[in-house]
């Protein structure tokens, strides 16, 4: 039978034309869950739509992508609209998406959001309820699978950071239906027997389904009820579970939980060395101060030579005495000078001095100073006192005007 041979390009082009001729495929709406969502530097978005049975490659060009009103995330359930065509280079058909709208969340995400909202409303995530993680965890209880890399990662880091602590491993299943009751049981058991100062509850990375035990309401409530502080350590950095919200401290990974749970011995050794230096410095400083004080005292003359000290005192006494005498002399001279001045002033004012200059003074018989002629009549007697001696006289004649 004769068969027509075509090139791959021809075949893909044929299919492309065939699909694009179908009016139904020119405008389709598809419901599915987003996965593998990638934004290329070109601005085009590439993703896969899935449901439980199948998947569909999709591309959304930059022009359409800029119109998005929400941030697409893996796991989101969405409605995608566009046309179906073939990308000839890959021979793959895909949805050329022009519009993407949130079609509600996937079942698990919905459950997660609902539980998160409920527990948040009840106050299970409240910062006020969070207990501090002890600085020195004498005993650390680890609730996780005893298989798997997570537990060994944690033990290795704990041994490196703070080998003085003791780790009690409470092995539990961390996925499957039995996981939540086992984790809850271990948390309660640790509390009942006060097994540790801090609990690490978690597991290594996995799919959202693998981590689901840590989104279980019973686990969340057991963590909340724990008297021992709990560090949650579930999966990888971007995985956030309900346990992370309710725990006293969220670690990004199990290894990170080990770092958060225990102090680093490098830092502790630094602190010890620092303390040793600080003590040495403080004591040296104090010794230096004390020595200075001793030297200062030793240098004083009284200790150097007590006789000098007494001599000093004697000299000072002499000097003081001398000064006292000097002051007394000066004081006395001043007083004397003042006395002389006062005497001179007194003398200047004395009537005797006036008489000495050639004036005379007359007194009536009744010992009044004779100031006017009205005091006497002719024939009255009066006494005249001169600078040198006195005489008694009689008034002969009175003239009204003395001149």
């Amino acid at each position, binding site marked *: 039978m004769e068969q027509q041979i075509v090139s791959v390009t021809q075949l893909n082009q044929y299919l492309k034309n065939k699909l694009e001729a179908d009016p139904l495929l020119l405008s389709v709406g598809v419901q599915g869950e987003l996965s593998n969502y990638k934004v290329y530097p070109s601005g085009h978005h590439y993703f896969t739509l899935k449901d439980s049975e199948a998947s569909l490659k999709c591309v959304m060009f930059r022009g359409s992508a800029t119109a998005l009103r929400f941030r697409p995330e893996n796991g989101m359930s969405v409605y995608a609209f566009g046309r179906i065509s073939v990308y000839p280079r890959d021979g793959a058909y895909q949805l050329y998406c022009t519009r993407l709208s949130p079609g509600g969340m996937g079942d698990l995400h919905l459950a997660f959001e609902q539980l998160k909202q409920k527990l948040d409303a009840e106050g299970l995530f409240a910062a006020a309820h969070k207990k501090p993680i002890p600085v020195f965890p004498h005993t650390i209880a680890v609730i996780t699978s005893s298989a798997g890399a997570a537990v060994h990662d944690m033990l290795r880091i704990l041994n490196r950071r703070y080998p003085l602590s003791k780790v009690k*491993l409470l092995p539990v299943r961390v996925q499957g239906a039995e996981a939540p009751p086992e984790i809850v049981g271990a948390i309660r058991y640790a509390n009942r027997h006060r097994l540790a100062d801090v609990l690490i509850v978690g597991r290594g990375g996995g799919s959202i389904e693998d981590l689901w035990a840590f989104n279980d309401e019973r686990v969340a409530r057991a963590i909340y009820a724990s008297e021992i502080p709990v560090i949650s350590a579930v999966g990888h950095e971007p995985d956030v579970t309900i346990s992370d919200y309710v725990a006293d401290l969220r670690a990004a990974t199990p290894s990170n939980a080990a770092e958060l749970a225990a102090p680093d011995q490098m830092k502790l050794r630094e602190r010890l*060395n620092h303390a*040793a230096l600080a*003590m040495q410095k*403080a004591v040296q400083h104090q010794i230096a101060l004390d020595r200075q004080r001793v030297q200062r005292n030793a240098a004083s003359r009284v200790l150097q030579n007590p006789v000098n000290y007494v001599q000093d005192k004697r000299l000072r006494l002499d000097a003081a005495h001398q000064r006292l005498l000097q002051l007394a002399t000066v004081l006395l001279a001043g007083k004397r000078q003042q006395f002389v001045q006062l005497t001179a002033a007194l003398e200047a004012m004395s009537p005797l001095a006036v008489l000495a200059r050639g004036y005379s003074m007359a007194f009536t018989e009744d010992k009044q100073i004779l100031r006017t002629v009205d005091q006497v009549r002719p024939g009255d007697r009066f006494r005249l006192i001169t600078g040198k001696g006195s005489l008694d006289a009689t008034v002969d004649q009175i003239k009204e005007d003395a001149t």
Partner: protein
Amino acid sequence: MNQKSKSFEAGLNRLDEIVRQLERGDVPLEQALELFREGTGLVGDCTRMLDAAELEVVKLSKGADGMPREEAFAHEPAE
């Protein structure tokens, strides 16, 4: 409970206290030297504790009486 970690913590706390006291400089020299001796001893003790320590790991299981029972659990030695 774990005595190693507890005495380490106690040692470190006491050491902090000694350093504070010495740095205040208000204790007589004789007492300061005594504190210095004690502190230096603590630095040595704590360092030796870290040097000698090896993480102790046990796996717990519930005994017949419901009380925790400790079993050895092999963990990879530090790299």
